């Protein structure tokens, strides 16, 4: 198997690892196996990104059939970039999973095998969505990743996890059905499912009502998955009651993949021309993006459960990303992609920190955080840096993406929007400060005589992510060049006749 097989390995290795995991059925071996698979996927993603940057898009023909007749896997810089991010986060999350799941409050004993199977399925599904070049294939992988994430969320020990998962299931199924309707209508008008082929054939019939309806259904469906305000209702509960490792993984990956799908379809399949002139997508995205930032940040301030608070903060960050898309400019798109990357780093770090706190204290309410700053200095320091990054202070990644977002807004002359971006940052100062205040300045409530620093297996992934937050905040060459190239390519597509 030569390097030509890389694109398929990205998907099928985790996909086939899942049933194998069910057969292994041993706690420690399953963990090692999942870690190995995740690490391998990371290497594959890195090799692919390197290859794509070198030689241009990779196309892999499944079953040896030429696209559009067969299914194509198509990797360009955009999806290789997101795949690298997802596999990296997954590897770090899985590193801490074994210790984190030891905690009986997080997941029922005896369910570990199912956790790893569902995790691998979800991971494979997300990677499948990323690399595939076929619209229906994308839907199939969306189903795999959604179904398995319902399982992962419902594995939470809290009884409300089941209800949260059910809520997500209903919303997610509606979203998936909408996406399917959209794809079906597209197929009816074009006779093809291949994404590149669709992009080529759509402009001829862009003015028909069917395509308009297809666009609406598809975008609304994906936005349900993306948890764009006001379609976010499933997210806070799902994140709050899922096991902590699951929250960390989903927060850093699943909404990012949904955003990727939006970018792919708005900018490539339908084209900027259609999305922004035929359909008032700009107005819709600006309104929902800014509202999302404001409302979700305000709600986050009032949360007592830190997991819920960060979940609302995620919705606000999704608002920023969508706002970046709405500008329809290269800088805006760049800001959006940068924020996609950066937000995964910050939220990954923060949720994993919560995992460490949960492991020691058994809860993540504001009152659980009281006075633990002295006992768990490394964990809390990680939280502070992650929080500062959310706020968007210089020297962290949060600053980089917000900087580009502001630039894009000012370039368009939308001063109100830039003010809202700043207000959103100020609001995040408040909710992050509440945690810092509780952890460092409040007296301890619980008996903390035996309270120790979190174990190393939890701290290492957290600190890798925290250092990544700082590193990519200071040395922006890699991310900025990459997103710049991707954004230019995406915007360039519509210039072609």
């Amino acid at each position: 198997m030569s390097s030509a097989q890389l694109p398929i390995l990205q998907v099928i290795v985790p996909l086939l690892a899942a049933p194998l995991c069910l057969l292994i059925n041993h706690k420690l071996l399953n963990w090692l196996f999942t870690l190995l698979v995740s690490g391998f996927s990371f290497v594959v993603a890195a090799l692919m990104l390197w290859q794509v940057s070198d030689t241009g898009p990779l196309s892999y023909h499944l079953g040896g059939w030429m696209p559009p007749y067969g299914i194509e896997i198509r990797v360009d810089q955009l999806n290789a970039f997101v795949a690298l991010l997802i596999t990296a986060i997954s590897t770090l999350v899985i590193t801490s999973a074994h210790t984190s799941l030891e905690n009986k409050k997080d997941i029922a004993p005896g369910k570990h095998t199912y956790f790893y199977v569902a995790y691998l399925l979800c991971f494979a599904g997300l990677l499948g969505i990323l690399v595939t070049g076929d619209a229906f294939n994308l839907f199939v992988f969306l189903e795999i990743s959604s179904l398995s994430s319902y399982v992962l969320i419902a594995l939470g020990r809290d009884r409300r996890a089941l209800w949260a998962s059910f809520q997500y299931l209903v919303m997610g199924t509606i979203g998936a059905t909408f996406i399917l309707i959209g794809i079906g209508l597209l197929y009816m008008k074009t006779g093809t499912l291949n994404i590149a082929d669709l992009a080529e054939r759509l402009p001829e019939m862009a003015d028909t009502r069917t395509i308009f309806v297809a666009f609406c259904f598809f975008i609304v469906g994906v936005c349900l998955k993306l948890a764009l305000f006001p379609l976010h209702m499933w997210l806070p509960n799902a994140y709050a009651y899922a096991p902590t490792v699951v929250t960390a993984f989903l927060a850093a990956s699943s909404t990012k993949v949904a955003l990727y799908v939006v970018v792919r379809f708005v900018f490539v399949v339908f084209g900027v021309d259609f999305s922004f002139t035929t359909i008032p997508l700009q107005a819709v995205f600006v309104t929902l993006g800014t509202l999302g930032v404001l409302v979700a940040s305000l709600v986050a301030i009032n949360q007592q459960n830190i997991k819920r608070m960060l979940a609302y903060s995620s919705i606000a960050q999704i608002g920023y990303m969508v706002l970046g898309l709405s500008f329809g400019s290269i800088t805006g798109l760049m800001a959006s992609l940068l924020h996609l990357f950066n937000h995964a780093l910050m939220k990954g770090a923060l949720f994993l920190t919560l995992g460490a706190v949960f492991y020691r204290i058994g809860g993540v309410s504001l009152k659980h955080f009281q006075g633990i700053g002295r006992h768990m200095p490394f964990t809390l320091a990680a939280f502070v840096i992650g929080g500062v990054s959310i706020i968007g202070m210089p020297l962290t990644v949060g600053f980089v993406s917000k900087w580009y977002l502001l630039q894009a807004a000012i370039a368009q002359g939308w001063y109100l929007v830039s003010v809202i971006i700043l207000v959103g940052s100020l609001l995040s100062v408040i909710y992050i400060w509440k945690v810092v205040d509780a952890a460092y300045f409040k007296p301890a409530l619980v008996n903390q005589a035996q309270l120790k620093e979190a174990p190393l297996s939890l701290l290492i992934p957290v600190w890798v992510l925290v250092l990544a937050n700082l590193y990519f905040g200071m040395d922006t060459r890699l991310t900025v060049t990459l997103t710049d190239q991707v954004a230019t390519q995406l915007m360039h597509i519509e210039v072609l006749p």
Partner: protein
Amino acid sequence: MLSGIYGLLSASLFVVLDAVDVAFTEAAVGAGISTILMLTTLAITGRYELSRPSIRTRIGLLLVLVIGVLLIYGTLGMPYFGMPENPANGHVAAYYLENTEQQIGIPNYVTAVLASYRGFDTFGELVVVFTAGVAVLALLPHSRDGFVVDDMQPMKHHLILRITSKLLLPFILLFALYVQFHGDFGPGGGFQAGVIFAAAIILYSMLYGLENAMQVISFPVIRFCAALGVLLYGSVGIVSMLKGGNFLDYSVLLETPVAGQHLGILLIEFGVGLTVAAVMVCVFFTFTGSVVSPAKSARVVAARDGEKTQGAP
């Protein structure tokens, strides 16, 4: 009940539209298995009606109306139904019709598209089924190798049902195998066959009790089969990679491409059938395993009350 009728009606609709394979699946899954599973769910959870329309239901109704109108609006731009020059009949579909005979060599073009041209989608769908099985296993309580089967009485008093179904069972199983291995030539294939096979086992367990059924097929075996089907499908793909082709390129499996396609389709359909049957049976077993019979739930309540009265003083 209504959902069963709905399934059957839509199956007939598919027949009218000349989509026999889809109709077959819909009849087996929509009208068959999902109705049974729905009834079992009702048996687990109990039911009650909420009759008061609230503001939320009104908003829901409004949303549904908006979506319905949007869908109808979308139909206005659609090409006329069944015209040969429609895009859906021209571009890719025409290629399949022209080349299946020569490239794959089987008369059922639907199977050719499903298993070979778009075999990766089918693999994905199989994994979806597998995921559903994992979901049920992960979330419903069951012990490591089975369930604590409580004293649910199988239908001992339905003599006629028991005898006739005993007569029917071998034929159902045989028909499942026919559908499985005849999928290349007539309508059918792994999905339908798996469901029919599972239906036979479900029928048996409904009439003779879960315990008897589990003596025929034990729980770990089902779990093993569910994983094995997916692995079989995947390993066909891996083998074709090792033989120098792309993933799921059956042409390289044997000397001539057509023979390779035949072998590949046979193997992956078998994998599909295995997983689908195993998952269906597994879902049914887990559901019925969680049904609490009235006698047992009375006992549980009594035990809980006992605890309360003990704790009170």
